[in-house]
Every structure is written in structure tokens, then in C-alpha cells.
């Protein structure tokens, strides 16, 4: 849900910026690793150079046991290196005693060489992680095959470590700065590139009202590609608006056609008893003195007029605009039965009417659209079934849905009419009065429409209308 809250025009630049940051971090890691290797290599080279220089000069002096010359040499080697400088240089003789040291106070001549050798690493293959401030190395010293002991150098690696830290710091700082700059630039650039998408999205889903076209002034003529995109969007919008208008007109036509048919049936329903009622009036006129006849005719008039009153009331209830928002009730369904009755009777059809849902089940749904759906389906069913057929109407409710089923013994809904009921695709006009309206109303109610057959093999239209959502909305 949270991800959906971030628009695409922000999400994509953020992703680009994030990827740049990741690339920057990875690149920094690689460079830092290479830097560490470089520093270790540099430390090795510096150490080897120092050892080689000293060993070359020291060996002949060691052969001569020239203590002062050795000391002078070692003493001059102290603190002369850049980065990795010798802090103390000692020669431990083959007998294990210190032969000479640049720090005679700490390592006197003849003292135990182990104190000097200590934890000295061999020069070949020593490890240096770059953060150590001291590095003690040793290597054997010999001259023309004569073993002269071990040359031990305590290096002060602080300068090298500081250099490494400084390089690391500047590298990380530089990379971070460059990465953040690039990420920021990437964000801005991509966001700018995606601005048309954001604009189209804003026009498609404005906070108020339907999708709006992009104003002509906002179409960038300097960018032909973008201008084409905007114009295409505007054209699509025009087409869609035209389609919706046509659909609405079609629905209105369908509604009027249904009304016409219903009006015909009602006229017939009214006309039929009119003959009997007029006869009763005529009888009363003819035999005003015969109380029995007058009473019988009056009762006949009463029943006929009451029937007419019910028919008129049902028609009015169905089409009264002030009841458009009233909840669905069993009375609505009873009205439907009354309205469809004449048409069923005219067609000499059998009507199987089963309403198992109570008012409590029906109430979450609005009355007007459901009545319209049911009436249209019943009229169509009656029309396609033909004289002497059977039409079924069943309303049942579960926890979540209200099932509205209309079945008939007719040949079934022709293939050409099915799209009216089952899809939103535009269709040509013709028969199947009100099917498009049924689909529109059912869709607005969040319902599903299915075609199948009953156990008896009758064609059936099932419409499932969700109750839960309506309840929630109502709540």
C-alpha cells in the first residue's frame, strides 16, 4: 500500500539514484581493496629495499666484527625512510646474542637476541594490514656463505598507516560526494524525463472529475516525440469520451425501449379489464333496480379498479425518481412480479417465482438498479421464450452475495447478443433490449454476470451482487 503511494515519476528516479548509490558503494569497496593491496605492496617493497640496502653494507662489517662501523651504519638508517622508516635495527649473531643494535640501551651488545627477535615476521611473505603502527621483520644475513645471524628491523609504520588512512578518507569522501552528486543529478534528470508520464497520470486521474485532456499550450512542440504522445493521449481520451457517450445513449435507448414494451403490456393489462368494467357499468345502468346485479357489478368494478390501481402503483414505484436511492426490499420484487405478470400472461407463459432472501439480506443493495436489472432480464427472458414457455426468477442471499437468477425455456441468448451482457466492448444496436444496461448497472454494483443452465436444462442468467461491500460502504 505504501509503495503504491509513491508515484512512478518519483519511484523511478529514486530507483536510479539508489542504483547509483549502490554502484558508488561497490566501486568504493573495490577501490579501497585495491588501495589496501597497493599499500601492502608498497610496504613490502619499502621493507625489502631497506633490508637489501642495509644487508649489503652491513655484511662485510659483520664479517670483520667492526662494531662501531655497524652501529654507525644502523644508526644512520634510523628514521630516514618515508612512509615506512626503521625505528630500530639490530643484528642478532649466529650465537643468538645481539651483535649490534641502533638502540644499544634497549638491546646491548651480547644481550639475548630473543628479546629483539620477539614476534618478528620473516621478511618473505610478511603480512601488513595497513593499520598497524609497528612492523618488526627479520631476515637471515650472510656474506659469501658465512652465516652472520639475523637482521631485525623495527619499522615505524605510523606514517604509512596515516597515509593510508588519509587516502582512504579522501577516497571515501570523494566517492561519496561524487556518488551523491551523480545520484542527485540522476534523480533530477530522470524525474525531468518522466515529467510527461506524471503529467499524463495527473490528467488521467485528476483529484476531481473525469480524465482531462492535456491543454494545447502544454504540448511541447520542440519535442516531437512527447508532442505525439500528448496528442495520442488526447485522441484516446476523445475516443473514450465518445464511447461512453454512445454507451449512455444506448443505455437510455434500451431503457426507453424496455419502458415502451412495459407500457404496451400495461396498456394491455389495463385494457383487458376495461371491457369487463365497462360491461359492469353498462349492467348497472341497465339494471339499476336489481340490487343483486348492481352489487355484483359494483364488486366486479371494485376488483378491476383495485387491480388497475395496483398496476399503476407498481409502475409509479418502479420509475419514481424520488425512490432512486431507497434500499432494495421484497416489496420491490413483488412489484416486479406484478409488472411482468401481464407480459407473462399475454405470452401464456408459466412464471416460477422464488424469493428466499429477506428484507435484511436485500437492504444493503439499492432498490432502483436491482429492480431495473431484474425487470430487463425478465422481459428478455419472456421475449425469447415464446408463447407457452416457462420463465424462472429466483433471488437468494448468502453472507457475501445476492444471487439474482433468471431462467427460461427459450433457445438461449444468441451469440451475437452475449457481448452486450458479458463484456464492455462496444456492440452494434439491435435486439437484446436492456442487456447493455443490465451489464452497466451490475458492473456499477460490483457484480458478476454468468450464463449457464439449470439442472432442468433451462437457460439461466446469474448475477451475483456483493453484499459485504455495500454493507461496509453503508457502515
Amino acid at each position: 500500500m505504501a509503495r503504491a503511494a509513491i508515484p512512478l515519476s518519483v519511484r523511478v528516479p529514486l530507483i536510479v539514484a539508489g542504483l547509483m548509490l549502490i554502484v558508488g558503494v561497490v566501486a568504493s569497496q573495490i577501490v579501497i581493496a585495491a588501495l589496501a593491496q597497493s599499500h601492502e605492496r608498497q610496504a613490502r617493497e619499502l621493507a625489502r629495499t631497506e633490508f637489501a640496502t642495509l644487508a649489503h653494507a652491513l655484511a662485510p662489517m659483520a664479517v670483520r666484527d667492526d662494531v662501531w662501523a655497524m652501529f654507525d651504519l644502523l644508526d644512520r638508517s634510523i628514521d630516514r625512510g618515508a612512509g615506512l622508516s626503521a625505528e630500530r635495527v639490530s643484528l642478532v649473531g649466529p650465537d643468538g646474542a645481539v651483535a649490534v643494535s641502533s638502540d644499544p640501551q634497549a638491546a646491548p651488545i651480547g644481550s639475548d637476541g630473543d628479546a629483539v627477535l620477539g614476534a618478528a615476521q620473516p621478511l618473505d611473505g610478511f603480512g601488513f594490514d595497513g593499520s598497524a603502527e609497528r612492523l618488526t621483520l627479520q631476515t637471515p644475513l650472510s656474506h659469501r656463505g658465512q652465516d652472520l645471524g639475523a637482521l631485525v628491523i623495527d619499522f615505524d609504520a605510523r606514517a604509512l598507516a596515516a597515509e593510508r588512512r588519509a587516502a582512504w578518507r579522501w577516497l571515501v569522501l570523494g566517492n561519496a560526494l561524487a556518488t551523491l552528486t551523480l545520484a542527485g543529478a540522476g534523480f533530477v534528470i530522470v524525474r525531468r524525463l518522466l515529467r510527461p508520464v506524471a503529467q499524463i497520470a495527473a490528467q488521467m486521474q485528476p483529484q476531481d472529475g473525469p480524465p482531462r485532456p492535456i491543454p494545447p499550450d502544454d504540448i511541447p512542440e520542440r519535442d516531437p516525440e512527447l508532442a505525439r504522445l500528448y496528442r495520442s493521449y488526447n485522441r484516446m481520451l476523445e475516443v473514450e469520451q465518445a464511447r461512453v457517450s454512445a454507451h449512455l445513449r444506448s443505455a437510455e435507448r434500451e431503457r426507453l425501449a424496455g419502458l415502451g414494451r412495459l407500457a404496451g403490456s400495461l396498456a394491455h393489462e389495463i385494457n383487458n379489464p376495461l371491457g369487463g368494467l365497462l360491461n359492469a357499468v353498462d349492467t348497472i345502468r341497465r339494471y339499476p333496480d336489481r340490487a343483486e346485479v348492481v352489487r355484483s357489478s359494483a364488486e366486479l368494478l371494485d376488483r378491476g379498479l383495485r387491480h388497475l390501481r395496483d398496476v399503476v402503483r407498481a409502475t409509479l414505484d418502479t420509475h419514481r425518481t424520488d425512490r432512486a436511492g431507497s434500499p432494495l426490499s421484497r416489496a420491490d420484487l413483488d412489484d416486479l412480479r406484478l409488472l411482468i405478470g401481464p407480459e407473462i400472461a399475454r405470452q401464456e407463459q408459466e412464471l416460477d417465482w422464488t424469493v428466499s432472501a429477506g428484507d435484511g439480506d436485500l437492504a444493503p443493495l439499492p432498490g432502483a438498479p436491482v429492480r431495473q436489472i431484474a425487470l430487463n432480464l425478465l422481459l428478455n427472458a419472456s421475449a425469447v421464450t415464446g408463447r407457452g414457455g416457462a420463465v424462472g426468477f429466483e433471488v437468494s442471499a448468502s453472507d457475501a452475495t445476492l444471487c439474482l437468477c433468471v431462467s427460461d425455456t427459450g433457445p438461449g441468448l444468441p451469440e451475437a447478443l452475449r457481448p452486450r451482457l458479458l463484456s464492455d466492448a462496444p456492440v452494434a444496436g439491435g435486439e437484446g433490449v436492456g442487456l447493455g444496461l443490465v451489464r452497466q448497472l451490475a458492473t456499477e454494483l460490483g457484480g458478476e454476470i454468468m450464463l449457464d443452465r439449470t439442472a432442468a436444462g433451462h437457460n439461466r442468467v446469474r448475477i451475483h451482487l456483493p453484499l459485504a461491500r455495500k454493507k461496509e460502504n453503508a457502515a
Partner: protein
Amino acid sequence: MRRPAANHACLPLTRRAFALGGAAACVAGRPATAAPAFRFGLTPVFVDDEWPLLQILKDYLEAAMERPVEFVQRRTYKEVAALLVAGELDAAWLCGYPLLQYQPMLAALALPLWRGASRYQSYVIVDAGRGASQLGALRGDIHAYSDPDSNSGYLVTVSELVARGEAPEAFFARSFFTFGHSDVVRAVARGLAQSGSVDGYVWEVLAEIEPELTARTRILWRSEWFGFPPIVAQRQRLESPEITRFATALREMRDDRDGRRALERLHLDGFDPASEAEFSGIAARMRRFAERE
């Protein structure tokens, strides 16, 4: 600890000896006249900046002798003495000890005057913080000598130990030669050696020009006075004109402006004619040492 720059004021280092030899050859490469150069051997007793001193000394000697002068520096007394005996040098600044060792062939031309006299002492020095007060307390030390042919830097100490009934090689646990008096001071100051034998003249001059170095040492024992290290020539050439002229130039150095500048840098007062009697003390030490051997 790094050596102070003032340390370069002293010559007696082996390393410097080579450097000085090169410098001397360089100086000799520009002869003042067509006459052959007068070859003068130097020993590790100078106390001053090498190049300025050499240049001043050379300028003076060449002017006084009216011929080019070439300085020849070697690491040890033995090398310089050998060159002189072999006739490779016309004169050399040696110690009284090698002079007496080669007495039949060599003779003293002149004696430097230091603090008004042509004599000096040998010092045995120890670390300034050491509590020892007698030579006997140095038993088992690592000891620094200057040169095996140096009177003050070797002969005096070993002969003194012999006189005290000690065997020098057994008295000290270990000894080594620095081949430079100032380096004996440095060896003791740095702790490389626990004691050292040094020329008193060198120690005193160092105390003036590099007091922080000598302050780290202490004079434990002073010897009797000996004849100052002399300027030496082949005995058979003592009366030759070039040697006579050279001896005169040395004696007249204190009267010349360039000569005085050189003497100031050497912390000397001048040169006097030599007397064999000045070295009787060294001869006595030699005898004492020989008796032991």
C-alpha cells in the same frame, strides 16, 4: 637519537675519512704551480668542519710553501704511518705511539700547542649517570678504543690495566675500535659501550663545540701528560728543503691570518719545534705494555 649537525665538526670517523680523502683529492686537483704536490697525511685528531678547515689549511700551506698541497686521509694510524714510511707521503699528522713504533724511520717535525703547551692527556670516560669512580669498576664492560695505534685511545688504558695487574682482554667483556676519538665519545654517550678511551684534547674540544654530547659522558680517569700528537716526516728527509719549508710554514702559522684561522678551527695555539723528549711518557707506556706481552 639522531646525531646533531655539530657532530660533523669532527673528523675521526671512517666514513668521513673516505669523504675527506675525496675532498682532499679534489683540492689537490687544482695545483697552484707546476711543482709536484706536497702530500700531507691526516690522522683522526682534527676537530672542525672538514672542508672549510682543509681549504683554509691548504690555502695557507700552498701560499707559505709556494707549491700545491695534497691531503691524504686514511682510516687508521697504521695506514698513514705505513704510507709515510713507504715514502708515499711527505709528512703526516700522527700520534706519538706510531711515531715511536717507527722511530728509526720517522721523526717529529713540529708539535701542536694546545692551551699553551704541546701536551695532552688520555681520558677514560663512562656514561654520565654511572656511579663508578675507579678504573677497577669497569671490569666486565664493553669498552670502546679509538685506534690500536693510538696512545690516548688504546695504549694508555691497556698499559694502565697491565700496571694494575690486569689482562686487558680479560678485564673488559668486550672491546672494539671506533677509529675516531669523537666516535669513542659517541659510543659511550649512546650506550653502545659502557666505557671508552679517548684523547683528552678531542674530548675537551667536543665539550666546547658539542657540549650536549660530552654532557652524556663523564671523565672517570685522567692519565699523566703526554707529548701532543706530532707532525711527522721521514727521518732521512728532515733536512730536505721541502720538509724544512713545511716545518717553517707550520711554525709561522700563528703569524699569518689564514694560518690563525686554521689554528682557531683546530682549537690550537700554534706549532713548536719538536723534541723527542716530549714522548718519553708514551715510551714508558709502551715499555709497560711490552713487559706484559
